[in-house]
């Protein structure tokens, strides 16, 4: 398909790219912006490791044609890390909590898990365990058994609340 200009916002910065609009957002991010924190697993919406936020909502970037992001805001795991850095930390409290709770094993699902958790905490700063499980239900993890991930998200919610208060 012919390339066309796509203008959007990526991690808070304006971006303009000449690309095939039917390319997936996942590939656009990885190959044109070198944002390789977003992973490719199944390429069909089943695993969630490619999760990013599109206008604040968690989506599978492998299912989003690049043309769709015209005029929209995309947030990736790199943007979340930077949010932490802006507050003088190495990473975002969610990422810190994943490390501390042993929620990262091989790590392949982690960027997607963090993005789904980030979307949850933005709408709901103190979720119940059920709500955490629901929020990450579109993300598969082959290593952890999910328990540590659930704990990490609940712990991060607490830390983030304390800082606010």
């Amino acid at each position, binding site marked *: *398909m*012919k390339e*066309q200009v796509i203008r959007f916002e990526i991690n808070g910065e304006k971006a303009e790219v000449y690309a095939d*609009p*039917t390319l*997936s957002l996942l590939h656009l991010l990885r190959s044109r912006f070198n944002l390789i924190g977003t992973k490719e697993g199944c390429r*069909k*919406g*089943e695993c*969630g490791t490619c*999760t990013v936020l*599109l206008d604040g*909502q*968690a*989506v*599978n970037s492998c*299912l*989003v*044609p*690049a*043309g*769709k992001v*015209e*005029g929209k805001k995309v947030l990736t795991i790199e943007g979340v890390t930077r949010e932490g850095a802006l507050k003088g930390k190495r990473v975002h409290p969610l990422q810190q909590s994943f490390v501390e709770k042993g929620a990262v094993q091989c790590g392949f699902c982690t960027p997607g898990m963090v993005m*789904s958790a980030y*979307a949850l905490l933005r709408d709901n700063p103190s979720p119940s365990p059920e709500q955490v499980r*629901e*929020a990450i*239900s*579109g*993300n598969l993890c082959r290593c952890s058994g999910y328990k540590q991930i659930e704990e990490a998200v609940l712990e991060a919610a607490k830390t983030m609340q304390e800082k606010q208060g």
Partner: protein
Amino acid sequence: MSYMVAASLEQALKILHEKGGNVQVIAGGTDLYLKKPLPDLVDVSSVPEILGICRDEGMLSIGAGVTHTEAAASAVIQSEAEALAEACRRVGSPQVRNMGTIGGNLVNAAPAADAAVALVALGAKALLVNHAGSSREAFVEDLYAGYNCSYVDGSSEILLRFLVEPCGQGMGSAFMRFAPREALSLPLVNSAAFVRLRENIIEEVRVVIAPVKPAPTRLVETEKLVLGCKPGEDIWRKVEYTAASEVEVRGSLLRCSEEYRYHLVGVLARRALKKAVERALNRQRR
């Protein structure tokens, strides 16, 4: 070849007209984007006419571009078209529900498309407009053309909205589904029901089950059985038996056996109908 994001209905129709069938409407893309090779696409997901949930002359008017997330979270749909909220809530995963639309769910025409099953039970009507600008109305029930095949032609026509009668006094609906996992799992069987009671007698009923045919299927014998009845413990066993007897299902190595599917058809039809009746009775009391 191109990907065009339509900002208005007028623009979308103009593109369909000019392309003379060599273009395809895309909404959330969760079904279409996985199909290769892709045709030229016109993205209608920002067209105002297909968005939002409102009231229109006493009916609920639900945009075809409403996502599963929006439908499941809508207070109006939760309280006046429960079956649809319950169905959308069970689709795929949060990520899929954030992108996937109820219009796309119907036009993609999967036999057990969750939202479509609920819309058939609710007796929903679809409003459509074609590239030449002429509109039509059709019952959702009549829009399946076959297996994964719809009478809505996404290369020349845009599905705008669904009209659903809001559940008021003596009315109720419900949706049930059984799948191997809670998320990211297509249903082995799903079912939705709608009832209207008058003085505790069922005077209108729709019970839908899928996948038993290419399209969501009304259980006509089961409906006949309960029509005019006063719902009580004695009818539920008969409902279960009749529902399972009036359909033909197949098993599959990947999903489940034939026997299990017959069992699920009976159980889910009974539960959906029973829940719809409970809700209708609650509304009568209020």
